[in-house]
């Protein structure tokens, strides 16, 4: 672009001396240029949209030590991490950066989906890799509405890297294939699985409450293992029965039941731990506008 068309922006804002505007005096080129640069600065510099913080110290509640803003990630479906946050902004600013400070177990991933007036959670995602302690994460170039107001909603789901369920803590088994039966619980939005060889602990803090998911792997142990589907385990009513949700579609469910009934097909299920995330800060800063 021509240098005569590329706006100049002042590096700091300062008022022009009143003498520059003496009545009856012509405005010189430097005064006009300073006025224009300062006007450009006024409409271009970004600003903070909001900054929310929560304690990082664990608190004991009902006998369990936990973080104040603590969540178990969902394996297959988006869940809302934080309700919509509406904020006023300077019109014309159309992008920003989101800062998240969170504690995610080492080796786990949590995927965050960002929804604004100009992005949806499927188009703008970021993978937060766990460190085992509170760490700073940021998501850059988040598009925002050009107008005077916008809204940010954060969604999240698990990154499917969880370890196999701890059988010492939650009971056995954490993988299986034989003598399996499964049925839909229509109307409840979930399916269930029964395997008489299982002996899961059903008391407080069981595998469903602690956060686990079930996944079905085809060609298990073979040369081309594939995960057919994953679902979050939502209830453990009996020691040999678990329920997952949301329910599978009818076609997938029938294919799954046929596969596990066919001993020639090496289909196997696994129970794995869901990644957790504890949040202590969510901040949003709007980028400066460029010509």
């Amino acid at each position, binding site marked *: 672009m021509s240098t005569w068309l590329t706006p100049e922006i002042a590096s700091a804002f300062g008022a022009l001396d009143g003498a520059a505007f003496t009545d009856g005096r012509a405005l010189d*080129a430097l005064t006009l240029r300073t006025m224009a640069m300062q006007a450009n600065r006024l409409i271009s510099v970004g600003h903070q949209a909001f900054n929310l913080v929560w304690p990082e110290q664990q608190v004991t509640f009902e006998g369990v030590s936990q973080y104040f803003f603590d969540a178990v990630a969902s394996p297959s479906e988006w869940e809302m991490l934080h309700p919509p946050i509406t904020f006023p902004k300077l019109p014309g600013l159309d992008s920003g950066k989101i800062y998240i400070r969170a504690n995610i177990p080492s080796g786990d991933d949590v995927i965050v989906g960002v929804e604004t007036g100009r992005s949806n959670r499927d188009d703008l995602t970021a993978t937060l890799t766990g460190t085992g302690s509170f760490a700073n994460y940021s998501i850059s170039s988040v598009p925002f509405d050009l107008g005077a107001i916008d809204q940010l909603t954060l969604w999240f789901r698990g990154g499917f890297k969880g370890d196999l369920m701890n059988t010492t803590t939650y009971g056995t088994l954490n993988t299986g294939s034989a003598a399996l039966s499964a049925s839909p619980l229509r109307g409840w939005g979930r399916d269930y699985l029964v395997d008489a060889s299982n002996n899961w602990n059903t008391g407080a803090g069981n595998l469903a409450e602690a956060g686990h998911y079930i996944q079905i792997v085809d060609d298990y142990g073979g040369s081309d293992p594939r995960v057919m589907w994953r679902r979050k385990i939502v209830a453990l009513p009996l020691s040999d029965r678990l329920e997952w949700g949301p329910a599978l579609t009818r076609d997938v469910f029938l294919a799954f039941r046929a596969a596990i009934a066919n001993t020639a097909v090496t289909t196997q299920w696994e129970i794995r731990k869901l990644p957790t995330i504890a949040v202590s800060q969510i901040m949003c800063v709007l980028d400066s506008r460029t010509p």
Partner: protein
Amino acid sequence: MTSFDGRAYTGAEFIPPALYHPAAPAVGDVGLQAMAAAYMASRYRGQLVGVQTYPMRFRFAAHRGTVSSTSAVDIAEWGDVHLPAHATHVGAELWFAHAPGEEPAEVNASLEVYDGSNTDTGSTSTFTLTEDTAEGAFAGLYTYRVLVEVALANVTAPDEVRVRLKAFVDEPTGGAARDLTPLSATCWRWTV
């Protein structure tokens, strides 16, 4: 705040050097655009009064902080707020959740601004909660948002202003209390 020409400038464009080139016959345009930029920036910068959120992910508050009342309850309060002299309105948006099956139900929300001696109270914003008026659903609950505003008429002190957002849900004719679970609230000021 009235702009220099009485117009509401809701946006402003960059001024390119071509307009203030010594040979450019556009001095008036530079002045006009510079003033429009100044007006727009003072109108829209620093508007935020505060954000208050109540994520459902708070394990510590497993009860979800649900409000059940037939009269106004303080949902959020912001203190030591600075309102510039040209601010004419304060408004807030409240997101909340409500359990399906509790109909009929109606939300009532209002905003109050207090400067230590004078109070401005906005009219109560009301609408009926149905599946159709819900913005979405989450964790088995419908989510709604309600907008409230108050025109500043009596409040004069610009500093140490307190802004209170009040709300409750009950039956439409003022009957039994219904549950209201706050999710987030944002408050900001603006100038007409």
